[in-house]
């Protein structure tokens, strides 16, 4: 059998960001895949040399547009460890509220893109219409729709009043009602099941050895969620990681869909338990030492490594994003599937290549 090498990407209608895969094809089935990255590399880690540790919050937010608040929280947590600052409890709860709202909007965005990936454009529009309500909540509480710039080293910049929290709960009810109306369409529809069940299987052993993170790992049967370590205010809130056991694209879709309900519940719990108090502490001193922090992004586990040397500029900032860890499992999922299913499998790991290559 003659083998052909076909390029997938970097420009492709289903990909939100450019990634290049060289697919080795033998009669419609993929045999091997070799990745090639570097199309959106911006060198953001090197910017610590010219921006001091307060200005770096804005740089870290812009690593990824979809999950920007979570990058900022992780950076602030690491820098606060280096400065030995104690963040007030109200600020931690406010951070949880904004992070969970980001998780809901990221999963709704992905569900829409996934439906668009196999041609179901009306479902894509339905999911994005629900997502607009979350964007309105962010715009009125934090000041901007996507990159909300609400975190600073030492706490948060804005507070939520009682009527704002009441309005957030009303909008959240509408979002949950809208998502529930679409549940049977994305999970039980004949065409969706035909295109996603049994495609792109990642077994439980493979998922662990290849270092999969996030819904890719939880869709293969491992109940691991970094939020269970209890950073910021997650230690006081009550939830379970969402697990499915089949390891194919359908399981990953179901994991992300059910996580929307868990996130809505977490926002309601956080608003109910919101304590009174300050929203930020004053920053004193200069960062010195080393810190290693990690959080759960919608795509998986994100870790930051900070190294300070006693000046205003950090010595080293290392960011490892979850899509970077999910690319080896993708290379293991691709052999054996037909060419027409490659876009679905690539989309099912939720690729955020601008995060990967910061």
């Amino acid at each position, binding site marked *: 059998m003659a083998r052909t090498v076909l390029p997938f990407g970097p420009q492709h209608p289903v990909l939100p960001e450019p990634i290049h895969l060289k697919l080795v094809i033998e009669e419609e089935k993929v045999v091997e895949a070799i990745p090639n990255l570097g199309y959106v590399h911006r060198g953001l880690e090197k910017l610590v040399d010219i*921006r001091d540790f*307060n*200005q770096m*919050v*804005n*740089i870290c937010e812009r690593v990824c547009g979809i999950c920007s608040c979570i990058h900022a929280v992780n950076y602030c947590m690491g820098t606060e460890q280096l400065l030995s600052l104690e963040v007030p409890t109200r600020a931690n709860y406010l951070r949880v509220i904004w992070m969970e709202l980001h998780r809901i909007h990221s999963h709704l965005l992905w569900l829409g893109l996934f439906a668009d990936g196999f041609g179901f454009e*009306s*479902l894509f529009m*339905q999911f994005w*219409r629900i997502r607009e309500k979350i964007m*309105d909540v962010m*715009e*009125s*509480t*934090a*000041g*901007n729709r996507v990159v909300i*710039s609400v975190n600073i080293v030492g706490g948060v*910049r*804005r507070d939520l009043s009682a009527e704002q929290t009441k309005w957030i709960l009303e909008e959240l009810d509408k979002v949950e009602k809208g998502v529930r*109306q*679409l549940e*049977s*369409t994305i999970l*039980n*529809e*004949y065409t969706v099941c035909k295109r996603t069940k049994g495609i792109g299987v990642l077994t439980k052993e493979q998922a662990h050895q290849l270092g999969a993170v996030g819904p890719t790992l939880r869709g293969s049967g491992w109940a691991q969620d970094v939020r269970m370590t209890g950073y910021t205010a997650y230690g006081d809130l009550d939830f379970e990681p969402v697990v499915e056991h089949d390891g194919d694209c359908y399981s990953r879709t179901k994991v992300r869909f059910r996580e929307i309900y868990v996130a809505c519940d977490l926002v309601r719990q956080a608003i109910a338990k919101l304590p009174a108090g300050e929203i930020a502490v004053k920053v004193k001193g200069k960062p010195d030492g080393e810190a290693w922090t990690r959080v759960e992004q919608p795509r998986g586990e994100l870790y930051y490594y900070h190294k300070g040397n006693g000046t205003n500029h950090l010595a080293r900032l290392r960011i490892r994003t979850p899509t970077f860890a999910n690319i080896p499992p993708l290379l293991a999922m691709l052999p054996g599937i037909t060419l027409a299913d490659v876009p679905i499998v690539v989309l099912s790991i939720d690729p955020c290549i601008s995060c990967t290559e910061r």
Partner: protein
Amino acid sequence: MFEMTKNVLRNLSGKYSTRLYPFTRRDPYTGYRGRLEQNIDECIFCHMCEKRCPSVCISVDNKNFTWSCDPFACVYCGFCVDVCPTHCLSMSNIHRSVTGERETMFYQGKPKPKKAKAEKAAPAAE
């Protein structure tokens, strides 16, 4: 099998999700970060906004008493508004409008009147 049909029928019988922009507009939210405005009479040229700006778009000169900002480099994060000690900077909640050419915000301020006369008068009065 026909799961999407329920959604289609619901959308057909419901009201529109979109607005007829530009004939009907939504009122802007009060917390929105729009255009940056500067009240140059209150400014004391302390350089705090210049140090804090993450995109380095503000330049302050306290020899000539000028303050300038490039609104196309600005990312509208609002940190300069937070750190300004005299609260001369503010953000309106309307988005910056479209212009035909690039322009820089440039303000010329006046030097503050010296307070030496007031201080000399106070010990003389005592």
